[in-house]
């Protein structure tokens, strides 16, 4: 069976139609539950499993706010194996290389299912080799919130790594040795999981304004250490010094200026890639020189945005996840640095998710195709090495979505006839900026009209691809295996593409 983008998908599943198809649907909500102050403190993980009634075949969830420094996922899974549980599905908002020990549990079928928004490292490789029994499901950040609240993703037990807890059972990311800032990706787990366990290494008095309210919490387990704070920092938070990257950033800013997007009261989001960070730096300089103030910035928040907040260049930061410790500190200290849940951030069924208010978003790509579809899920051989995260959510919400990418990466043309895997549909991608030229989506005649009056090098996507081929040669056709090992679920719950086993 094929979906509207012509991608082969599993039979009997809801096929992707278009990025605004959800507007015809009603929001589905399962009941939240309340524990009304009956939080218990448990002694160890074995007792915790008994208390929450963990059984074979259940789905357990985790968040990724401690990123590559997280110790909770491995700790819980290790105990699950020791206790002899089988057939467990892991619903983690992301999985990183430090979760490598789970590979063994996938192979012995302790873990048989994974639902996540982003996955790289040893687990991604194992899943790519076909080691996971059930199909891997890859959501977007907003889509995961939708899946949880609708019951499409039923969570039996949420194990929430919590940097600080109080005696009442409230939890916060603001304090403690592993303070990671906001806990946006854990909020739907907290509200909708059948059982909720906070796992923490820091007890404090009375948390005021907790991100995790005791009313949803069943139990708390104190451990020695939930994470390494250095591992919390995202790997890609350095501004690019590469001249090619900087040219792409400069041209992107010219595009933003030509479209009059940098003006008083604007809003923006950028990824944490080196080129995006350079764009923010240039935008910041323009704001200072022209005395412009932004209304808000959103997303995974970096120290760069904290500087802008503290220098009064932006009114508010809407932060679903702190990318570095400076952001975590700012969130703790600054009232204008506001935590939002994954749902408030990008759930299509929220009344007004933050992404819908964005004037522009700057995103990366592993591949872009002639139809402007973007892949950030796999490499060109189909090996999983990432995932949407908020890519598809922000691309749909923002008024202008700009992809910044080198035309070639290590010889491989980034622009392909067809992407290996569709993460974000081309209808939501407006502009692609490369060092050799800028392509504008033919659907955006308004942008074409404005930008064609400038001196910017506007080309068609086909022309850009041909330039790449002139430089690198035409890549030979690579046939992926036909054996599906998972699928990419669009934010509305429809299936946008299939993931295949690696040859």
């Amino acid at each position, binding site marked *: 069976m094929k979906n509207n983008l012509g991608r082969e998908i599993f039979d009997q599943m809801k096929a992707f139609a278009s990025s605004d198809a959800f507007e015809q649907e009603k929001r589905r909500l399962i009941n939240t539950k309340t524990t009304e102050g009956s939080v218990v403190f448990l002694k160890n993980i074995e007792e915790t499993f008994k208390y929450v009634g963990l059984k074979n075949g259940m789905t357990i969830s985790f968040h990724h706010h401690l990123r590559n420094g997280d110790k909770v996922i491995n700790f819980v899974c290790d105990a699950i194996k020791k206790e002899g549980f089988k057939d467990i599905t892991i619903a983690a908002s992301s999985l990183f290389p430090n979760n490598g020990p789970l590979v063994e549990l996938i192979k012995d079928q302790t873990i048989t299912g994974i639902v996540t928004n982003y996955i790289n490292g040893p687990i991604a490789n194992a899943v790519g080799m076909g080691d996971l029994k059930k199909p891997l499901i890859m959501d977007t950040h907003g889509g995961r919130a939708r899946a949880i609240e609708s019951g499409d993703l039923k969570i039996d037990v949420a194990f929430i790594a919590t940097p600080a807890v109080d005696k009442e059972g409230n939890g916060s990311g603001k304090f403690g040795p592993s303070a990671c800032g906001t806990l946006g990706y854990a909020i739907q787990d907290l509200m909708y999981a059948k059982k909720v366990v906070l796992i923490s290494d820091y007890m404090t008095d009375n948390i005021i304004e907790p991100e995790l309210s005791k009313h949803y919490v069943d139990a708390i387990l104190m451990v020695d250490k939930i994470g390494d704070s250095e591992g919390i920092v995202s790997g890609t938070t350095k501004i690019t010094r590469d001249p090619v990257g900087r040219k792409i950033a400069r041209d992107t800013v010219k595009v933003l200026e030509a479209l009059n997007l940098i003006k008083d009261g604007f809003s923006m989001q950028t990824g944490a890639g080196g080129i995006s960070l350079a764009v923010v730096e240039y935008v910041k300089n323009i704001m200072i020189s022209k005395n412009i103030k932004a209304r808000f910035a959103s997303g995974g928040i970096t120290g760069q945005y904290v500087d802008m907040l503290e220098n009064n260049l932006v009114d508010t930061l809407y932060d679903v996840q702190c990318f570095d410790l400076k952001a975590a500190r700012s969130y703790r200290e600054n009232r204008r640095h506001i935590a939002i849940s994954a749902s408030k951030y990008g759930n299509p069924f929220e009344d007004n998710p933050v992404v819908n208010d964005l004037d522009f978003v700057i995103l990366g790509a592993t591949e872009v195709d002639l139809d402007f579809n973007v892949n950030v899920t796999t490499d*060109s051989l189909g090996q999983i090495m990432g995932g949407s995260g908020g890519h598809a959510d922000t691309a749909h919400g923002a008024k202008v979505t700009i992809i910044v990418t080198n035309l070639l*990466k*290590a*010889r*491989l043309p980034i622009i392909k006839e067809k992407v290996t895997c569709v993460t974000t549909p081309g209808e939501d991608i407006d502009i692609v900026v490369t060092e050799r030229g800028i392509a504008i989506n033919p659907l955006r005649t308004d942008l074409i009209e404005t930008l064609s009056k400038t001196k910017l090098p506007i080309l068609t996507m086909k022309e850009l691809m041909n330039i790449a081929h002139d430089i690198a040669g035409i*890549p*030979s056709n*690579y046939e992926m295996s036909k054996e599906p090992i998972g699928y990419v679920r669009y934010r509305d719950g429809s299936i946008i593409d299939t993931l295949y086993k690696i040859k």
Partner: protein
Amino acid sequence: MKIGIAGSLESNDCLVTIKDSDVLSIKVQSIVDAFYHDQIVELIQTVLEDVNMAHVDVTVIDKGALNYTIKARLLTALHRMEASHA
């Protein structure tokens, strides 16, 4: 034995090692093997023909170098091989 080495294992570069040999042997190991292996081998053959070198053993470890880089590294490695003999 004569040997010439040129290049590096940096991204977008390649490391070329050439030795004299009774028979022509070309080994290419590339991060873009799936897409450019044949084109790289063909390029090496063409360069070797151009300079009339039929009796060499060429090993290329490629990190996504473009053709002109591979050609330049190959020619330099050839010169170094000759120089090592002199």
